[in-house]
């Protein structure tokens, strides 16, 4: 959440920092106060340049950036600003002006618990005045600042696809990608890895989401629909590691969904964790009762590396991309869960591997 313009101006004024809206004011420099991800200290950066990307400028032109660090909770002092501005190349008179600006910006940053504060200033006659001020607040700390709740605006958002907007309206963090393989990964920590695994085995992710936590029928349906209703998606790869939940409970919901949805698209599932054996039995029973439907469902468990399960999904998507019918060679055997597989180093699936992939249906 970002402080809106009026509140930012109000806080700056309270700290006796001049503000200007003169469009033709001569830019004089930039100031940033933030938390340094490397040292976990408060970092103050000052430059005579109009800075867009502080990281890039500091790396490529370090002499143009002066920086200082304060411990969390430590107050800035007058000398902090004077010394910073001296090192940034400001003259003696400006050093005094910047002292006030640095102190004020640091104080607002600390008092409102910002993640970062980014300011530009310009020369207005004999003074330095703020021409742009952005204060990014920590959402998690807003409970301590109820007075700010009415003075925030959401940060500028990236453009969302229609599917991403739908997902957001359902409370699902979802990302559209360009490929043809939908991914339901559990938490986004493994979601990032799943995108890599699919890509590294020659596949093209079509979408990924944060699907961790306890599943409800409604949430699981919404997440699977997001993937399966996407016309670009030809195969869905689901990974579920029931660490804090139960694999059988999740599998029951998934089976119910698959039977209800009757999707013609292949779904590759890897289920592991608590109550995994019960989950395996549920899938076996469901496949026996719905043999035609479960020909399009591949189930793997913890005795198959996640890489290998992903490779099966990738092989299926590759076949479909090539116009091959992944079910053409499939026997109508009822679901037979995969036996333990000897792990093998990952290699992109060769055509022969792809042709063999669908055999282990269910």
């Amino acid at each position: 959440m970002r402080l809106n313009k009026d509140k930012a101006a109000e806080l700056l004024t309270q700290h006796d920092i001049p503000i200007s809206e003169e469009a033709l004011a001569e830019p004089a420099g930039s100031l940033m106060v933030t938390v340094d991800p490397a040292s976990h200290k408060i970092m103050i950066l000052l430059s005579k340049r109009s800075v867009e990307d502080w990281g890039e400028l500091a790396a490529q032109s370090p002499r143009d950036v002066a920086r200082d660090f304060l411990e969390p909770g430590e107050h800035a002092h007058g000398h902090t600003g004077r010394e910073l501005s001296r090192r940034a190349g400001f003259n003696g008179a400006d050093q005094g002006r910047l002292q006030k600006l640095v102190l004020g910006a640091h104080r607002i940053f600390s008092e409102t618990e910002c993640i970062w504060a980014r300011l530009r200033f310009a020369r207005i006659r004999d003074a330095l005045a703020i021409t742009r001020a952005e204060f990014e607040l920590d959402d998690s700390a807003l409970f301590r600042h109820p007075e700010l709740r009415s003075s925030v605006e959401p940060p500028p958002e990236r453009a969302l696809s229609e599917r991403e907007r739908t997902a957001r309206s359902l409370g699902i963090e979802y990302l559209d990608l360009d490929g043809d393989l939908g991914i339901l990964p559990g938490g986004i920590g493994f979601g990032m890895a799943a995108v890599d695994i699919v890509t590294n085995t020659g596949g093209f992710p079509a979408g990924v989401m944060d699907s961790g936590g306890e599943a409800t029928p409604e949430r699981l349906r919404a997440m699977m629909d997001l993937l399966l209703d996407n016309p670009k998606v030809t195969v869905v790869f689901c990974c579920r590691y029931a660490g804090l939940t139960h694999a059988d409970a999740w599998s029951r919901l998934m089976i119910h969904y698959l039977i209800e949805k009757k999707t013609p698209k292949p779904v590759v599932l890897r289920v592991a964790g608590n109550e995994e054996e019960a989950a395996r039995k549920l899938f076996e029973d469901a496949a026996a009762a719905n043999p035609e439907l479960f020909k399009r469902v591949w189930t793997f468990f913890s005795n198959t590396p996640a890489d290998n399960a992903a490779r099966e999904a990738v092989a299926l998507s590759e076949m479909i991309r090539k116009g091959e019918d992944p079910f053409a060679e499939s026997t109508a055997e009822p679901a037979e869960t995969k036996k333990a597989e000897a792990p093998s180093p990952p290699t992109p699936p060769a055509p022969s591997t792809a042709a063999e992939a669908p055999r282990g249906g269910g």
Partner: protein
Amino acid sequence: MAILVSGSTEVMVQGIITTPGRTYTKLMLEYGTKVVGGVDPGRGGEEVHGVPLYNTVRECQEHHPDVKASAIWVPAKHARDAVMESVHAGIRVIVLTTQGVPVHDILMMRRKAWEKGLTLLGGNTLGVISPGRSLLGMLPKVAFKPGHIGIVARSGIMTYYIANTLDLTGQGVSTNVVLGGDVFTGCTYEEILRKFEDDADTHAVVLAGQPGGAHEENAVGFIKNMKKPLVAYIAGVHFPLERWEGPCVPPVQYPKPTGANKVAAFRDAGIPVADTLMDIPRLLKKAMRK
């Protein structure tokens, strides 16, 4: 031996009367963790799952002078108070499971813990497990088998997959440590790697990282000089971080903290990086042969 928690570590739970506090206290007890006390202001004298409750950490310490670790389940607005109570009492290992802890709070807690030589995992951590010995937090016992590989990661769920992958190749885990998924956490990779380096039970280490923050980059210098073999795995190399991360990430890092840049930083330093999960046991084997 293992690190941080062993079978003899006495543990207390702060926020034991919360729903997750009760749930995971039960799981920890079932695992064999020596939970000797719970702390909840105003609830002293009561019991949860047979564990006596105390009003303060100091009171718990008076009754259990050997208590060395604390697992915390409290709402975010009480996290700072709970952690600082343990820090002031000198509790050596503090696991803060709470999500959404204010950034300025975690910075302050981290600094105080570091000054006293204590280990603060989290916020937003699933904790630490020394398989077959002790569990502090919410990690599932089903995922971790005893062995000699140390795991340290930011994401808890990644460690399930890594442990599962190791298990498929016949390797188990000495201790599994989750730093927490946030950009700012109470502990660094280096602090944990130092402990693994000194642990006779740990023969090699897997470090799992992810995009965002500077945790991985900060660890490179230490890893280069480690005596024990280490394999890194960075998730999210192909993940478009710029389309996912929120504004809470300070826009000051260069190169950008993408998965690909983190992999490059490790490889430039000669640290083996697994491209996939199944690469991990293969590279470990290779590194351990050296």
